[in-house]
């Protein structure tokens, strides 16, 4: 009997222990709380057509075909546009830290299939005449020389995916932002084929010298891909607490990853070259050499690792500072006033639910990157698309919305991963050489061994 009681006692204790473990575990997790906010947005041809119809009374297809008629061209135009984006924010609060993970992922696919019949410029090479402006030259070629009857097909697929992650970490004890991490993965792929082919020749300053036109067909493929991951260590950046602070943070930036595609290097090189300018301090021919290496073959390379591999020197971190005034509003949003020369830029950094004012973000882009005119056009475009204001709402309990957001983001991530993955294929010629040389070497060795040589 005593024996049975002992067993029973052990059983009761065991059941209590087992049932208590999840409770203990949940108590441990009790210190960690997470909230999720998110929204999805997108655009398709029907939406664009609806907006355009409201403004112009015509769909996109009709507008383009009407424009072609003005140029005496008989055009059939079949566009397809598809786009989906997801913007999410995860807020994790753990012990003394709050980590905010913002993630944007989405894509735009534009597919165009068109066929134009009518008069086109005569095939041949056109030289820019002495003193002739570019406008006059293009008018001479495309208006005055339209003498040949052709039917020209153009098909193009433009795919754009973007994935951007921003992670910030705030110490709740000190109220300071201590770390930030930014990762951006842009991918633009263009695949175009046409019956008409233009080949222009430019001088060193980028002015057109001549233009050759033929109707033998052309194909254009471009793959602009980047994977930029940058980590920031931040000191003296108080963002939480009562009152207002003037801070001068030290932000140390280190590049974790900087993979670029050849096409991207070619695209941004003129910009970098312009930036380096005559005041550039870069020694000798390093930039040109690095560019020639990055673009020598169709491969994706890490810019920083390449520089380090070539110069055997570490590319040092960059340190930034600036004058910022920070305060918190009653909703807990962090309000930052960043002094920038004679002006002050206001940024509201919410720590939870927020409304993304895309137009305001465009205003924050420095003019040396995006001109005033370009900003106006961008804002109009955002307005037409309905993306000028996006409400990122609490979806912690909305499983359906969560799945929708994650599905889009996961798909984009998968596409980006594929873009950087390597399919190492060994050309057949190397395999043949390998077999031949191995056979020759083994044969020679055997012959030497047997005294035949």
């Amino acid at each position, binding site marked *: 009997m005593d024996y049975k009681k002992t067993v029973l006692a052990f059983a009761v204790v065991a059941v209590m222990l087992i049932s208590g473990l999840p409770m203990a575990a949940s108590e441990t997790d009790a210190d960690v709380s997470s909230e999720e906010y998110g929204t999805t947005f997108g655009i398709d041809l029907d939406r664009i057509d609806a907006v355009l119809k409201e403004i112009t009374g015509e769909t996109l297809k009709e507008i383009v075909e009407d424009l072609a008629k003005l140029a005496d061209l008989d055009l059939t135009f079949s566009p397809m546009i598809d786009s989906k984006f997801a913007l999410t924010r995860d807020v994790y609060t753990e012990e003394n830290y709050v980590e905010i993970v913002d993630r944007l992922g989405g894509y735009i696919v534009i597919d165009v299939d068109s066929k134009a019949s009518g008069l086109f410029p005569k095939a041949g090479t056109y030289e820019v005449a002495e003193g002739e402006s570019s406008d006059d030259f293009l008018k001479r070629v495309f208006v005055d020389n339209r003498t040949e009857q052709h039917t020209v097909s153009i098909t193009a697929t433009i795919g754009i995916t973007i994935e951007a992650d921003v992670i910030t970490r705030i110490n709740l004890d000190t109220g300071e932002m201590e770390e930030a991490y930014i990762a951006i993965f842009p991918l633009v792929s263009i695949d175009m084929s046409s019956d008409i082919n233009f080949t222009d020749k430019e001088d060193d300053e980028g002015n057109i010298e001549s233009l050759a036109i033929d109707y033998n067909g052309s194909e254009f493929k471009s793959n602009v891909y980047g994977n930029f991951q940058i980590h920031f260590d931040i000191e003296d950046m108080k963002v939480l607490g009562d009152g207002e602070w003037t801070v001068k943070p*030290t932000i140390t930036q280190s590049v974790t990853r900087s993979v670029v595609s050849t096409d991207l290097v070619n695209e941004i090189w003129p910009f970098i070259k312009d*930036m*380096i*300018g005559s*005041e*550039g*301090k*870069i*020694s*000798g*021919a*390093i*930039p040109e*050499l690095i560019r020639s*290496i990055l673009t020598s*073959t169709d*491969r*994706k*390379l*890490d810019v920083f690792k*390449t*520089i380090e*591999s*070539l*110069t*055997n*020197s*570490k*590319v*040092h*971190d*960059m*340190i*930034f*500072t*600036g*004058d910022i005034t920070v305060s918190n509003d009653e909703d807990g949003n962090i309000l930052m006033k*960043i*002094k*920038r*020369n004679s002006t002050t830029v206001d940024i509201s950094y919410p720590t939870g639910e927020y409304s993304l004012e895309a137009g305001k973000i465009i205003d924050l882009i420095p003019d*040396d990157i995006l001109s005033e005119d370009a900003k106006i056009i961008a804002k109009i475009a955002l307005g037409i698309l309905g993306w000028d204001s996006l409400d990122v709402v609490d979806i912690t309990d909305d499983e359906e919305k969560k799945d929708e957001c994650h599905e889009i983001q996961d798909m984009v991530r998968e596409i980006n991963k594929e873009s950087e*993955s*390597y399919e*190492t294929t*060994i*050309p057949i010629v*190397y395999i043949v*050489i*390998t077999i031949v*040389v*191995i056979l*020759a*070497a*083994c044969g*020679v*060795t055997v012959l*030497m*061994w047997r005294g035949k*040589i």
Partner: protein
Amino acid sequence: MSMTVEERNRAVGMWGLAVCLLAVAMGWMLMRFGVSWSVADLPESDNIVRIIPAYIIAEIAMIPLGAKLADLWGVKRVLLIGPIIFILGSILAIISLNVEMLIVFRFIEGLGGGLVLGMVFTAVGKYYEPDQRNKCHELMTASFAFGSLFASATGYFLTDLINWRAGFILLAVMMLAGVIVAWKLLPNQEVEKAPMDKTNLLLVTILFGVAAFYTQSVDVDFALLSVPSAIIVAVIIAILAIVFWHSRRSSNPTIPLGISSFEKKLIILMFLFSMCGLGLIQYFFKLYLTYYNFDIYMASWNFMYLILGAALPSLIGCKKVMKTGVRPWVTVGAIFVTISLILTHFIASEGEVYFAISLFVFGFGLGMIVTEIIISLQGITAKKDMGQHTGNLMAVRMIGILVGNAVVGSYIKDVIQSNYVAEIINFSTTDNLLKEIVRHMGGNVQYSANALNDGFMATVLVMAVVTAILAIVAYTLKKYDLENKSEE
């Protein structure tokens, strides 16, 4: 003076060995310039930094073995093993699907390369009498120098033009051609039967392998002054002690024991001159690239000044060393190396002409030292023990080069680069932020160039002091090589 058919065959056979040596030397530096760019068509891997060390470690580990086997089996039997391993490693490297496979095949290639390297210099001692070895040693030294100095540019050219794989095909074909010529034309030699102490061979191989591993890992996997560094040094010392202990009990040890103080001095001089001289060459190359002109071909072309400087004293020195003894050559050579290092410190960064002059004088000094020491040491060594002595001298020489590289690299990296003070970009007051960032990045690269210059210039002064001391040590050498005497 006309040669007999046998002499001509032997000479042409030596040219075959020189081609093999050229391939081995090229293996060192083939992908050194921009290795991550070279193999960018392979999946990304953090192990990319191991591609070059894999070859170097394997090669150095096998040098004493290749030389010793030449003693035990004869040169031609080593020709049956070393080159085929090298060729297999090279040719399999071209079908690598990832960096890790490439590392393994480079390691195999290095194993073969080490056997060939140890055997080639031993072969000169075995096939020729002491007063006939000069031309052959000059040929081998020139072959090794050309291979090491121009492989970076060759590798870059082939990668840019075709693919990095083309470089390995070139190495394999060169080795195959060289070995056929050498095998066909070199005479067979009688080999005295001697027992092979496999344990001793293995211990010596491990010793040199670990030492080479240390030089390739320091500052990559761990800092010079760190616990792992101290542990590996302790391991090397322990293996060294075991090797000595075991060798004393061995009937046929791989490393020579009981050698004269003359030979000891030669080995020490070879190590230190390799460290202070040959070990700096890579930094001359980098200095030109980052300080003058980032042009791999121009940087390589500058080595011609080094070779031109070395050619004349080497030709005369190698010819006369068995008549004058090694002492005057090494002493005067050390003085010239000292002068060249001082010149480098004061004028090399003043202009490309001064840079070339510094390299020329540097070569002039080295031309009186390295090959003369090998000839002198072989002059006091019996043919049957040629591999034992030559293999160790060559392995010590290679370790010296790597130590020189590591010391300079470590100094530049730890002392100079860690002093980098970043310019702070103030986004509140900077007019054009993007331009400032790009300018800053340019300054960053410029700083690295200046740091390399400053670090190198400080190091050469230290090396100049060391070579000045070595000149005194060389002056104390006795004339044992003239008396063909290895024991005091």
